[in-house]
C-alpha cells in the first residue's frame, strides 16, 4: 500500500471510531467524549501503523506496551482494542455497566490489552517508565508508549517521572501528550498555566516533537522519528482539539465529562458522516 492510501485508511478507521465512541458513551449515559475525540487519531495511528503487538497473545513478552495515563479517554482505547481483536466488539455496548469488561477507567485485571490500570491522573508515565526500565534490563526490544492528557501535566508526579525516564536514558519510552488545551472546568492556561509545555519536556532532557495531533501524516512521521532516537526518552506534544469532529463540542470544556444526548448524538453522527463524504 502506498503511503497516501495508508494514511487514508487510518483516517477512515478514526472516522468510524469517532462514531462508535460517541455511541458508546451516550449508551452508557456517562463518560468523557471530549478527550476521547481529541486522542483518537493518535491512538489509531499508534495501533494500526506502528505498534508491534499480537492481540491473540496479549502476554507476548516482546510486545510494545501502551499506557493510557489519561484513563478517562478509555472509550477511545476500548474501540481500538476491540478492532485489534483483544476482545469481542459486542463488549463496547456494555461500557460502564455493572460487571462489564470495560470499566469507566482502564482496569488491567478485566480488559485484555490494558497494560496497567489508570484513572487517577499523573500516574501513567511512572508505570510506563518502569516497563521501559524492565525492557532495558532484560534486553527486550519492545517500546513503551504513554498517552498523557495536557491537564494531567499539572500533577507533579508527571515531572517526577519525566526526570526519572531521562535520568535512566529510557529511549524505548515515548510520551504522547494530547494537548487539547482544555481540562474539566476550562482552558488549561486559565486553570494552571502549562505553556511553554514543549519547553518543559526539553528542559527535562527529553527529545521533543510538536505536531498537529489530527494530521495522520504528521503523527506517523513523529512516531517513526521517535523510534530511531537513542539515548533519551521522546515526547510528542500533539496539538489537538477537544471534541474534534463534532462542531458543537469542539473546544467546549462542557463536553469533557458529559455524554451526548440522543439528539446531540444524531447531529454529531450526521456531521461526522457529512465530513467524511466531503
Amino acid at each position, binding site marked *: 500500500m502506498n503511503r497516501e492510501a495508508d494514511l487514508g485508511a487510518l483516517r477512515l478507521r478514526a472516522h468510524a471510531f469517532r462514531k462508535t465512541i460517541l455511541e458508546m458513551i451516550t449508551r452508557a449515559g456517562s463518560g468523557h467524549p471530549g478527550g476521547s475525540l481529541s486522542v483518537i487519531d493518535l491512538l489509531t495511528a499508534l495501533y494500526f501503523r506502528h505498534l508491534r503487538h499480537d492481540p491473540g497473545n496479549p502476554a507476548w*513478552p516482546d510486545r510494545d506496551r501502551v499506557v493510557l495515563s489519561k484513563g478517562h479517554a478509555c472509550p477511545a482505547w476500548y474501540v481500538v482494542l476491540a478492532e485489534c481483536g483483544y476482545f469481542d466488539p459486542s463488549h463496547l455496548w456494555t461500557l460502564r455497566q455493572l460487571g462489564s469488561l470495560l470499566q469507566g477507567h482502564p*482496569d*488491567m*485485571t478485566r480488559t485484555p490489552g490494558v*497494560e*496497567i*490500570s*489508570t*484513572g*487517577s491522573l*499523573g*500516574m*501513567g*508515565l*511512572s*508505570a*510506563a*517508565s*518502569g*516497563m*521501559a*526500565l*524492565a*525492557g532495558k*534490563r*532484560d534486553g527486550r526490544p519492545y517500546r513503551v508508549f504513554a498517552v498523557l492528557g495536557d491537564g494531567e501535566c499539572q500533577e*507533579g*508526579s508527571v515531572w*517526577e*517521572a519525566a*526526570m*526519572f525516564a531521562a*535520568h*535512566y536514558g529510557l529511549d524505548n519510552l515515548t510520551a504522547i501528550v494530547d494537548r487539547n488545551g482544555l481540562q474539566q472546568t476550562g482552558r488549561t492556561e486559565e486553570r494552571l498555566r502549562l505553556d511553554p509545555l514543549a519547553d518543559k519536556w526539553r528542559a527535562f532532557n527529553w527529545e521533543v516533537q510538536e505536531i498537529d495531533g489530527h494530521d495522520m501524516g504528521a503523527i506517523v512521521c513523529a512516531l517513526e522519528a521517535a523510534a530511531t532516537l537513542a539515548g533519551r526518552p521522546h515526547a510528542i506534544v500533539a496539538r489537538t482539539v477537544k471534541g474534534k469532529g463534532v462542531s458543537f463540542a469542539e473546544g467546549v470544556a462542557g463536553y469533557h465529562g458529559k455524554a451526548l444526548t440522543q439528539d446531540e448524538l444524531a447531529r454529531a453522527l450526521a456531521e461526522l458522516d457529512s465530513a467524511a463524504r466531503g
Partner: protein
Amino acid sequence: MASAPRPNAALKATRDAYGEAIVEVARDNPRIVALTGDLRDSNRLEAFAQEYPDRFFECGIAEQNMIGVAAGLAACGKIPFASSFAAFSPGRCYDQIRVLVAQPGLNVKLVSTHGGLTVGEDGMSAQAVEELAMMRALANMTVIVPADAVETAQAIHAAAEHNGPVYVRLGRSGVPVLFDESYRFSIGAAPLLRDGGDVTLAACGIMVAEALEAARLLEVEGIRARVLNVSTLKPLDEESLLRAARETGAIVTAEEHTVHGGLGGAVCEVVAAGHPVAVERVGIWDRFGESGPPGPLMQAYGLTAEEIAAAARRALRRKRTS
C-alpha cells in the same frame, strides 16, 4: 507455641535484618529488584546496591514516581521491593499505591523503615503513626509488622514468595532479638508466644517485647497472661484472636501506632463481631509524635510494659464486672 522468647536479648534493628534478607532472597530469585527514594543508607539497601547494581533503582526524592515505576516493573514480571520511610511511603504516595498496586493486585513489596515513634529525634513529620490504618484499609494488601530481626528476615522471604502486594513496616532503632532460628513466621498467623488463661496481650512490632515483659510483671501478681504476636495485621488471624477472646475473656492490644484503625481497631472489629469481650488498647491516642530519644518517647506516650500491665488489670476488672 512458638519458640520461647529470650529475655535480655541483644538489640538489632529490623531494618538491618531487611538489608541482609533482601540480598539473600535476591540471590535465589533474579526477578527481585529494589528501589529507594534517596534513602539507600537508611533503608539498609547499600549491600543490595553493591551486589546487584543492575537490579537496584535509585528513584530520588520522588516517592510517587517510585511506586509507579515499581508497578510498571511488576507488570513486566519483576518483584520490586520499594523502600522509603513509612512517613513518605505510603504517606506521600498513597494514591499510587491504591490505583497502581492494590487495585490491580500487582506483585509490589512496600518495605518501609522508620515506622512509628522510635524514629526519635526527627520528630513528628518523620514518625508514621497512622500508616498501618491506611494500608489495612486497602483491599488486596497484606500488612506485616515484624517484632524482631529474626521475624523480619522470615517476613521478607515470605513477602517475596507471596504473589501480590505486601506492606512491611520496619523500625529504625535497635529492638531485642526475641526469637531464635526455630521461629516460624507465616503470613496470616499470630503465633502464641506465651500461654495463659486470664487475659490476652495481643501486640505487634516492637510492642511484642513490651507485652512479654508485661506478662512477666503480671505473673508476679498471679495473673496468667497469654501473649500473641500479631505480626500480620492483614489478613488478621481471626481464629487465634477469637479463641483468645473465648478462653481468656479479656484482651489488651499494644502497638506503636494510633489506636484508631491499626491493631487495636482491627482486634475490636473482630472481637465485637465474633465474641465480645473487654478490649483495652495501648497505643497512641489521637495525637502525633514529637522529637526525643526513642526510649523516653515510648515512656511519654505510654508504650511500655507497665502500661500494658495496667491495661490488663483494667481489662480484668471489666471482665469480672461484666
